[in-house]
């Protein structure tokens, strides 16, 4: 068997013929028996995916190799329970989506290649039907899906590391690019080199990318100079050739990433005719068509950190547009930094269009971004953590730490180390994080190349995730995930059926795996099965496995579901166990469950015996009625032993009887329509049966009805009256039924067997029934009822019972039922005797005898409110005699409601107030009440009435209230009031009144008296009050008197030791009103030694301060005065120094020439002038008569204003002489002239 193993790398390399060797090896073993060696049939070769999927986390092997298995790190961005849905699959089980596998076969080969043949570390890989790995020393190893090495190629041209590898669409050709610029094409079957292309790219640069396009003979190659070349392979006359053409020159922007669109849709897509390519430089990305002609479709700017390369990946995605049209179009994801942009490429109106779809932002910068299936993008960040992002929800599903994989970086190629480093600095910097050729994707798998290992990250489907969780015994998560999937598939029946099938499979796995701990995660699995409705499996498989071991938990879960009403029926086996279990633990809970379960699944024999034993009467009633269709047996069993204190049972029975008689099922639902009549009849007959089935000797007749009445007469009668409303009781026969029942009731409720209260209930009931025409007007019955109603005195009758009696009577009256047996007059008398005032009231109203209306209203406490409304309403109607009645009952009315009565009086009888007051003069409290209310209503009371009120206040209330009254009201005469108050020795009130009278002196004296007589603890307060009084009086009291008062007060206060606390504040207060000198003197004189200097100190200080302030003020005032004087003077001087000019040659008054040797008065700035002698004629002259310019006036107090003139010296003679042409000498001006014209 050793020979059957795959040929080792060593043997392949040593063999001259390369891979043909291994083929020959196969031929030699052609005759091997497949079955004997368990060789799988060759015609059904497994696909790469199926084979790789089988390496389900073979971590044992990985650990043997010494490579630690990466563990899923807890994702910080999504919580445990976050329900991310990827295509309707729940995502709550974190860590179950990504599947990690180490390809240990390939890894072992890589290790051995590096160690034995000096192949160097792995540098690039490509995955298609084969897996090709290139190494840093130029070796290429090609593996098939079983990880067997098919061939190895060694570069003999010393072209450095393999920098890039690419398989063509059908995996027949492999392109390999080298770090020194060589591109070779290899036949994948044999490993033969078909083409060696030395000069296809920019000279002296290395290859960064080689890619096949969608055209089979067209490939692309990007070099470290940033140029992109197209390689067209030709085969002319059997000679293989290649023409290369530069698509983009690195001089115009260095291309970092190249990603051709390969669709494999066999011409079904419009884009198939094009050869489309995505390119990205450090600043932009382009979508370009290469065939049929080179054209840029679209370009976008792409910003990002300088050390991050742009990332490109295509995938065909089903896109559902807003208008529900669906299309499958290629979507490109462009990544840079921590951003991912998604664009859709489609053909619209014959043009290729790029449409922006969405944008995802991650937390850290990215190394790679690849599609894993059409819904997820896997991106590796700079700290080598793999993030799985759901595109639709833009959320991170899971992440995994890949640091242990030893990821290979292609930085050396980007830096051009093999070709002398002639690359741009920006390129070299960005290239530090290059791993274009070491992370590749295929389908839903991501291949991560380590230096000596190859790793696969797969995405599990929903079903696989469940399997994974099951394998790890994470049942809870598995169930949750399964249910999520099931619920999410609600609208798609086919998917739902599949989901259900999967859940059933999960259940079977659970059954098979949980033998050792049968109740582990039981709840979730039970919930699962109930949700999908596969109950039978629960009852059979799960139950039987739990049997005898631990059914408790199971039963509890089932009970929970019954209570939530998610299941109505269980297997009888389970129901038996449930009943047994809950009988032991909580019979009450059992009752709840029974009421919610379908009775068909219960073992009636067991349950009914149990409920009877445990007195679960609700369940008993329910089961008897529903299951056995027996509505009476339970009644006959439960009724006779009913005691009045069993309220629960009693009420339950009442509800039961009521619902049966109304055709409803107990506790809910309806009785089947065909049974309703029978049930009603049965129940009624049972209730009214004369003897019970057992019929003991001492039994009273009608035991069942009697028991109910005994339990609660009122409610029983309610039930009956409800039943009377049913159809069955409304026809002719029904009336006789009613009558019969009433007679039965009367027969049962005899005074020997029932209390009066109960009989009262019954009779009220009958009265109501009669008055609502529900019972025939039977004279005998009516008489009986009336005799009860008219009873004068019933022992222990509560207010409620009495009012019920009244209302029953009233109803009978108002429905005219009693006409036949007695007249209104008789009834009036009866009612009055029975104190049924409501009835009396109605009868009076009926008889129009209004005189005593108030009387019965007053007697009836419940009608008091209506009474006032009644009076209000009828106040204007003479025959109602409201005023007379009011007068008669004034006292009582005031007692009942003073405010209302007063309101009525004040509103309607304001002129009768005096009369009414006189009426009450003997009843002082009532008088007081009336007056008080009147006063409170702010009625205009006469002063005598006010004084009367004050008098009453003094008599009836305490001093404080009196004072308050005095404060709050006016209208009394002060002197009279003082008299009254003094008579009652209410000193404070007197003081207040004195103050009101402004006789402060008297008030002060009285206050001092109070102060002197008051005890020590109250004195301080008293003294403060006096101080306040004095402060108030400061306005009116003459200063001398005020000072004297203060002195009196202080003289009393100061020596008092116990009043020390207020001395200071009092002194302060006093200092505002009296002379400080005297105050200090007083202090000095009266001050006793023990008192501290502190009290006086403040005083003295304030004296000093005030003195200083006064001095300061004086000085400031003097300053201001001086300043004002100076300013005045300056202004005056300014005015005086202004020149005067006369603009008129004639006097304003006499119209004569001015210059006639008389005194001339110039009127100021306007320049008008007049003779002084003419001034006398126009006095008083206050303004210029011509132009109304104001003239300077002297304003001496008390005298009429006079023109203030400034006498100026006459112009000098010299001046006049010099101007000889004019007779100026004769002009005697009072101001020097400045201008003449």
């Amino acid at each position, binding site marked *: 068997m050793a020979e059957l193993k795959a040929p080792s790398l060593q043997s392949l390399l040593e063999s001259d013929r390369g891979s043909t060797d291994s083929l020959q090896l196969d031929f030699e073993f052609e005759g091997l028996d497949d079955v004997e060696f368990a060789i799988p049939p060759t015609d059904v070769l497994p696909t790469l995916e199926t084979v790789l999927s089988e390496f389900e986390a073979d971590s044992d092997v990985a650990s043997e190799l010494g490579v630690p298995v990466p563990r899923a790190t807890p994702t910080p961005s999504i919580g445990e329970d976050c329900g991310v849905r990827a295509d309707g699959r729940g995502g709550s089980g974190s860590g179950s989506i990504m599947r990690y596998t180490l390809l240990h076969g390939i890894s072992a080969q890589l290790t051995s290649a590096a160690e034995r043949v000096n192949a160097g570390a792995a540098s690039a890989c490509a995955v298609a039907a084969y897996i090709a790995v290139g190494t840093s020393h130029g070796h290429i190893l090609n593996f098939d899906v079983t990880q067997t090495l098919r061939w190895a190629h060694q570069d003999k041209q010393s072209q450095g590391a393999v920098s890039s590898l690419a398989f063509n669409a059908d995996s027949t050709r492999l392109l390999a690019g080298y770090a020194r610029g060589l591109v070779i094409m290899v036949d994948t079957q044999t490993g033969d080199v078909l083409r060696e292309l030395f000069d296809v790219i920019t000279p002296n640069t290395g290859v960064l990318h080689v890619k096949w396009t969608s055209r089979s003979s067209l490939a692309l190659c990007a070099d470290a100079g940033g140029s992109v070349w197209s390689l067209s392979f030709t085969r002319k006359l059997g000679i293989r050739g290649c023409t290369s053409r530069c698509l983009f020159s690195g001089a115009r922007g260095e291309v970092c990433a190249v990603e051709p669109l390969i669709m494999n849709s066999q011409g079904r897509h419009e884009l198939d005719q094009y050869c489309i390519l995505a390119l990205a430089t450090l600043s932009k990305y382009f979508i370009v068509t290469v065939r049929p002609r080179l054209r840029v479709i679209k370009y976008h700017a792409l910003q990002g950190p300088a050390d991050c390369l742009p990332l490109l990946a295509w995938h065909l995605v089903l896109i559902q547009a807003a208008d529900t049209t669906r299309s499958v179009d290629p979507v490109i994801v462009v990544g840079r930094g921590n951003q991912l942009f998604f664009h859709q490429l489609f053909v619209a109106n014959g043009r290729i269009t790029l449409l922006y779809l969405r944008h995802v932002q991650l937390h850290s910068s990215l190394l790679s971004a690849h599609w894993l299936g059409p819904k997820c993008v896997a991106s590796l960040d700079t700290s080598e953590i793999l993030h799985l992002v759901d595109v639709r929800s833009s959320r991170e599903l899971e992440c995994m730490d890949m640091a242990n994989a030893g990821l290979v970086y292609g930085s050396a190629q980007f830096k051009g180390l093999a070709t002398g480093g002639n690359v741009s600095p920006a390129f070299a910097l960005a290239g530090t994080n290059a791993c274009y050729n070491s992370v590749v994707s295929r389908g839903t798998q991501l291949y991560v190349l380590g230096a000596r290992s190859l790793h696969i990250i797969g995405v599990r489907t929903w079903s696989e995730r469940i399997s994974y969780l099951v394998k790890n015994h994470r049942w809870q998560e598995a169930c949750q995930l399964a249910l999520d999937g099931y619920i999410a598939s609600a609208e798609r029946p086919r998917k739902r059926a599949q989901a259900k099938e999967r859940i059933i499979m999960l259940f079977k796995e659970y059954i098979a795996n949980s033998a050792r701990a049968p109740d582990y995660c039981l709840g979730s699995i039970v919930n699962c099965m109930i949700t999908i409705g596969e109950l*039978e499996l629960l009852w*059979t498989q799960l139950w039987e496995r739990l049997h005898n071991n631990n059914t408790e938990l199971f039963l509890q879960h089932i009970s929970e579901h019954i209570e939530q009403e998610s299941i109505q029926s269980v297997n009888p086996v389970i129901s038996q166990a449930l009943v047994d279990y809950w009988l032991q633990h909580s019979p009450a809970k059992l009752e709840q469950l029974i009421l919610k379960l379908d009775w068909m699944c219960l073992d009636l024999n067991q349950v009914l*015996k149990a409920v009877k034993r445990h007195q679960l009467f609700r369940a008993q009633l329910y089961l008897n009625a529903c299951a056995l269709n027996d509505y009476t047996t339970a009644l006959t069993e439960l009724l006779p032993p009913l005691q009045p204190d069993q309220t629960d049972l009693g009420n339950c029975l009442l509800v039961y009887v009521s619902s049966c008689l109304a055709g409803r099922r107990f506790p809910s639902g309806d009785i089947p329509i065909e049974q309703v009549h029978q049930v009603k009849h049965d129940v009624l007959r049972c209730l009214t049966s004369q003897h019970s089935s057992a019929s003991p000797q001492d039994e009273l007749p009608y035991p069942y009805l009697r028991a109910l009445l005994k339990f609660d007469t009122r409610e029983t009668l309610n039930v009956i009256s409800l039943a009377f409303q049913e159809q069955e009781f409304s026809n002719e026969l029904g009336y006789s039924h009613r009558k019969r029942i009433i007679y039965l009731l009367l027969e049962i409720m005899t005074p020997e067997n029932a209390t009066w209260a109960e009989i009262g209930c019954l009779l009220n009931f009958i009265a109501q029934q009669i008055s609502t025409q529900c019972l025939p007007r039977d004279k005998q019955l009516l008489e009986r009822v009336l005799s009860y109603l008219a009873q004068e005195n019933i022992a222990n009758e509560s207010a409620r019972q009495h009012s019920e009696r009244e209302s029953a009577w009233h109803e009978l009256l108002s429905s005219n039922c009693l006409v036949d047996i007695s007249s209104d007059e008789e009834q009036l008398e009866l009612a009055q005797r029975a104190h049924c005032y409501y009835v009396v009231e109605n009868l009076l109203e009926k008889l129009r005898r209004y005189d005593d209306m108030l009387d019965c209203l007053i007697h009836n406490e419940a009608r008091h409110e209506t009474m006032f409304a009644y009076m209000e309403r009828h106040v204007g109607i003479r025959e109602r005699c409201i005023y007379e009645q009011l007068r008669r009952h004034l006292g009582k009315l005031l007692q009942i409601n003073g405010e209302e009565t007063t309101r009525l009086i004040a509103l309607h009888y304001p002129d009768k107030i005096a009369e009414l007051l006189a009426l009450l003069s003997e009843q002082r409290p009532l008088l007081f009440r009336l007056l008080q209310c009147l006063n409170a209503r702010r009625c205009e009371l006469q002063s005598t009435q006010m004084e009367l009120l004050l008098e009453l206040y003094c008599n009836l209330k305490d001093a404080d209230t009196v004072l308050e009254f005095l404060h709050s009201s006016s209208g009394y005469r002060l002197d009279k009031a003082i008299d009254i108050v003094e008579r009652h020795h209410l000193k404070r009130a007197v003081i207040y009144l004195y103050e009101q009278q402004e006789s402060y002196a008297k008030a002060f004296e009285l206050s001092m008296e109070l102060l002197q007589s008051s005890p020590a603890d109250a004195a301080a307060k008293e003294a403060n009050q006096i101080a306040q009084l004095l402060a108030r009086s400061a306005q009116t009291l003459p200063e001398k008197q005020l000072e004297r008062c203060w002195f009196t007060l202080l003289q009393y206060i100061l020596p008092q030791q116990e009043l020390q606390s207020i001395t200071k504040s009092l002194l302060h207060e006093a200092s505002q009103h009296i002379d400080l000198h005297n105050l200090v003197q007083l202090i000095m004189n009266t001050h006793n030694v023990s008192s501290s200097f502190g009290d006086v100190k403040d005083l003295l200080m304030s004296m000093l301060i005030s003195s200083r302030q006064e001095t300061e003020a004086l000085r400031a005032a003097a300053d201001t005065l001086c300043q004002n004087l100076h300013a005045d003077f300056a202004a005056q001087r300014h005015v005086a120094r202004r020149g005067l000019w006369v603009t008129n040659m004639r006097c304003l008054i006499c119209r004569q020439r001015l210059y006639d040797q008389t005194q001339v008065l110039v009127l100021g700035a306007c320049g008008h002038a007049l003779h002084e002698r003419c001034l006398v004629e126009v006095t008083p002259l206050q303004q210029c008569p011509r132009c109304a310019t104001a003239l300077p006036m002297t304003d001496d107090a008390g005298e009429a204003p006079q023109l203030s003139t400034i006498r100026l010296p006459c112009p000098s003679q010299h001046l006049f002489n010099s101007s000889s042409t004019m007779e100026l000498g004769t002009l005697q001006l009072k101001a020097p002239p400045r201008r003449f014209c």
Partner: protein
Amino acid sequence: MATTPRSGGSNSGAAQRPNGTSQNKSCQFKLVLLGESAVGKSSLVLRFVKGQFHEYQESTIGAAFLTQTICIEDTVVKFEIWDTAGQERYHSLAPMYYRGAQAAIVVYDIQNQDSFQRAKTWVKELHKQASPNIVIALAGNKADLSNIRVVEFDEAKQYAEENGLLFMETSAKTGMNVNDIFLAIAKKLPKNDNNQGSVIKPNGNEPTQTTNNCCK
């Protein structure tokens, strides 16, 4: 314990069972007991299920439910037995139980001619109302008191043959024919699962949880 089959719950350890039993088929049948009151329906079932006999068996209310598993050849048959109450007032309940039943045992008391007549009425009702495939057995109970019998064996036998019923005279007190009549029913019931909704066929490779050892 006088019965051959073991009660359902006493053996459920799947681990102890040899793999051979996994070939067993497992069927589940609903069986209903009918007959006049006090003919011994409950006693019959009690004898079959628990192997017990009470001289003063309480009368059943409504219906009681019991299960028993027996083994015929290599098929495990689980009976879900509804033991209905014989009293007249529970008569209306019976259709609920026999409607979905695959088998019925109509019991009469060999000392009581009326009960035999009542049994005939039940058979008629079953023929009319129950599922057409129902297997009916007629059991003349209290055979231990055959010295004071009223209903002759031959008469009943003839009636049974005419109506296509299984017939046995049984005695819950002595256990006579009790298991036999159930076994006979089990044998007569169809074991293929195409017409039985409630038959559960275990998966081929997983150990059967539902089966019990038949032979001990």
